[in-house]
């Protein structure tokens, strides 16, 4: 829950500006951008994600460092489990929203 997971914005949706697809270590999921509405990220930007919401924009280097920190903390698997769980994929509705 308190994990900050770094992800890269790979797709934005003009019709729903508060949603974006992020990629975290090869896994793609939709996250909410509502908490960055004052400074919306663009495709290619890196963000820190908390519980499915992008919370801050960060540099690519900081994103890579954060992933390494999670790895060394032994929390990278937990982080990937969290990311894979976003959107209830795999256990409830199969369709991405």
């Amino acid at each position, binding site marked *: 829950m308190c994990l900050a997971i770094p992800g890269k914005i790979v797709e934005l949706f003009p019709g729903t500006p508060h949603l974006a697809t992020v990629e975290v270590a090869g896994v793609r999921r939709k996250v909410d951008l509502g908490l960055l509405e004052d400074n919306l990220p663009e495709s290619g930007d890196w963000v820190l994600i908390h519980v499915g919401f992008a919370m801050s924009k*960060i540099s690519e280097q*900081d994103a890579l460092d954060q992933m390494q920190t999670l790895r060394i903390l032994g929390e990278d698997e937990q982080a990937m489990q969290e990311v894979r769980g976003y959107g209830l994929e795999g256990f409830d509705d199969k369709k991405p929203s």
Partner: protein
Amino acid sequence: MRFVDEFRDPEVITKTAEEIRRLADPSRHYRIMEVCGGHTHAIYRFGLKDILPSNVELIHGPGCPVCVLPMGRIDDGLALAQQPDVIFAAFGDMMRVPGTQGSPLEHKARGMDVRIVYSPSDALKLAKANPNKHVMFFAIGFETTAPSSALTLMRAKSEGIRNFSLFCNHVTIIPAIRAILDSPDMRLDAFIGPGHVSTVIGCRPYEWIVRDEHKPIVISGFEPLDMLQSIVMLLRQLKSGEAKVENQYKRVVPWEGNRAALRAMAEVFQLRPYFEWRGLGFISQSALRIRDSYAEWDSEQRFTVPGVRVTDPKAAQCGEVLKGVLKPAQCKLFGKECTPEQPVGALMVSSEGSCAAYYNYEHRKAMATSLAWPA
């Protein structure tokens, strides 16, 4: 220290550790509290204590949301979920936390519809997918997760999703720090401030700590180098007799915080007059409730909450450990009745709880050493 080689700039880490030794006055004992549970976990995991001089002591603070949640709130949430056609949704961290009748996971085994979600927005999605059920999201967390809960309720309202409510247990970090500073058996010199909470609230809310209490505070990142640099910054302040708020984690934490997140929180939440914290007791204005304009999405306004109060087992000394008065291993139950596999107190449940962190890294290490010792 473990893992140094895996980090960037191992040389800088060594130099920073030397700087700490140079700055720490051998005639003084420094008590520095890391407020955030994420820092506690990192400190044990990295073995930071091994490279700090013995007179620089790190005290573990109250910043683990699972750990400070009183058992009565878990009982209340589970009681609401006993009603027909209710789905109980919560983060995975909550699933093993014991209530008096067992954890959410144990209730699931007895037939309750309990779901793990990784985001409050997924709990809302669950409500959309199950229009004939009511989804209750058991929300916990400090200011890191509260904005996401707020935004989820705003979306529920704007989309008119009425079979969804939030059982709000969000707490705020500043009153907890104040309660610890007011505690008569506590003597602290400085604080390592929480990193991710501060991305939301920024650095200003800490200014009273330096103004009223004259204690330095440095907002810190989570890498070993971040924390060592923060300790250097604190020791420099202590040496010069200064007390100010400094931000070591500038790459993520803006001084002003995240205004959009603060707006969402202000739209949906207001302060409760008081709230009970496990181990710390009742603290005034330390938690959030849902505003009346969102009453329909507030589990507590929508249903009748039993309002259970459960006192912790007398032998457990969670409160003293939480305030940093006792070390985890000094609790009578530590490693005996209370282990990560069979937790009695909440500090043993979460990996960010100081007891679980201590058990997983220090206690297991000590046990392995004693077992390896030739007879």
